[in-house]
């Protein structure tokens, strides 16, 4: 068993991948708590897809180098988050329709840009589904620094974000800077997505934001506990997913997301508080 666990660790890329998966899992899970509580899963999914043209452009400009992509992703994500936030406030069409139009259009633009390169299929799949085993130590540092920044801001503005999410009218009557706080939260989601890009990719991002937080939501009624449990589930998914990927040779991003989904299903069915099976057994 021990050798089974240790064997993959002789490879530096596995160690870097594990560290990246755990870091990304924690940041995504904590931010994802607000995504779940505020019903922003679709927004998160759209935001992740919307940054593809930014990454593609960076990729073309740098001639295929990976190192600068983080900054392109970060820039695009922040602009897209604030842009979608502003557009969804205008009452011309319904919010989810507006988001749907922008997200599909931008995603298509990203694919079109990447398709001008010859090695397009491989690169596209890395952007879409992640390539955690290709994480360099430099991008690991960027992940750690920006991830820590996100967590620090979530901590500093804890009571403001909590109040704004639970009762926006109270936030206004307490004269909190509501517009600023909303945009800050969107920006934090954007940074989280940029940080997680290489681990799970654009297409699977929403799972990291939503699934561990939703699992935790089933188990507690305290927000800090929900954040801690979500971080735990996400880290576990990252580690278990990578071992699965190593031993049964499946794509790492998919393995992480499938593990998170399996954890959710287990809790959904068996948790003693409101698990589906438990309830029907007690009926």
């Amino acid at each position, binding site marked *: 068993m021990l050798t089974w666990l240790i064997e993959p660790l002789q490879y530096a890329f596995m160690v870097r991948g594990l560290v990246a998966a755990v870091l990304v899992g924690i940041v995504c899970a904590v931010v994802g708590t607000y995504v779940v*509580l505020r019903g922003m899963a679709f927004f998160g999914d759209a935001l992740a897809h919307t940054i593809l043209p930014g990454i593609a452009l960076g990729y073309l400009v740098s001639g295929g180098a990976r190192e600068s992509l983080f900054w392109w992703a970060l820039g695009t994500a922040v602009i897209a988050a604030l842009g979608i936030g502003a557009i969804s406030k205008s009452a011309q069409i319904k919010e989810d329709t507006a988001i749907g139009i922008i997200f599909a259009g931008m995603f298509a633009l990203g694919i079109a840009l990447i398709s001008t390169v010859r090695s397009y299929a491989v690169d596209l799949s890395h952007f879409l589904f992640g390539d955690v085993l290709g994480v360099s130590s430099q991008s690991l540092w960027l992940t750690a620094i920006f991830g820590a920044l996100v967590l620090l801001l979530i901590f*500093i*503005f804890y*009571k*403001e974000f*909590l*109040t704004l*999410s*639970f*009762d926006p*009218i*109270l936030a*206004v*009557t*307490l*004269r*909190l*800077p509501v517009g600023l706080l909303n945009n800050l939260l969107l920006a934090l989601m954007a940074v989280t997505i940029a940080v997680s890009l290489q681990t799970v990719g654009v297409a699977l991002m929403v799972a990291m934001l939503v699934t561990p937080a939703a699992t935790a*939501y089933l188990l*507690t*009624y*305290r*927000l800090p*506990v*929900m954040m801690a449990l979500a971080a735990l589930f996400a880290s576990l998914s990252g580690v278990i997913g990578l071992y699965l990927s190593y031993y049964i040779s499946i794509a790492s991003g998919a393995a992480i997301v499938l593990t998170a989904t399996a954890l959710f299903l287990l809790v959904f069915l068996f948790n003693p508080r409101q698990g589906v099976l438990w309830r029907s057994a007690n009926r």
Partner: protein
Amino acid sequence: MYPHSHHQQDKPILDVQKVSVRYNGHLALEDVSFHLHVGERIAVVGPNGAGKSTLFKVVAGVMPPTSGTVTVYGSGPDVHVCIAYVPQRSQVDWSFPVTVADVIMMGRIAKLGIGGWPRKRDWDIVHAALGTVDLNDLAKRQISQLSGGQQQRMFIARALAQEAELMLMDEPLTGLDVPSQEGILSLLDRLQEQNVTVMVATHDLEQATQHFDRIMLLNHTLLGFGKAEDVLAPERLLEAYGGRLRVVSPDGKVLALGDEGCCDEGEEPKHAHLAD
């Protein structure tokens, strides 16, 4: 970051002058003017969609009026943290992962400042508020585990923790059983002892008559504001409720109001009945 406006004590706690609110092309409030005295209890009555919630939001500084002015102690409501808006229970996400004490502490955060954490004094205030509304034993419960009356009392406690001087309650009695309603009404008496001014939207004309100092009859415009016997005259009620007024006894006493008006403020149709 958090404004603390000086209260000009010679100015009324609330002064509303010629306020109109128009949205999506229709006039929700038209030329509404009134002012309140400190410690008054006001019942706001009128059919669904009459603009009661809109009035509260304008007074709370949550929604700007299209024209007219609202002042609280001489300055605009959006610089005050002494106004509490108690939401309708149907507008709240009860499955949110917070406890009763968490929700009440939210009332304190304007006083804590950005990055500030609750101190002992804040917890003392929260516990005192819990005591006032008699929810000490339920402080650590998740909010969905409370009954309707307890949920409503929790929001009143939050307004107390906020040190609110003006409380706006949007139909706090709707959907509660009689003992719970009485619990809320007796709390209103305690608030008056603390000089808190309250405006309560309600459908129940008898409770409005018995438990409030003045009654405001609203249907987009202000149809009456004063003592119950003046405001609730049958012809005025007919003007407010139109054909939707159901039961008026022969001696002119209103016994029941039925209201199936449309819900342009997202209110569900409600029936308010008086005991006869």
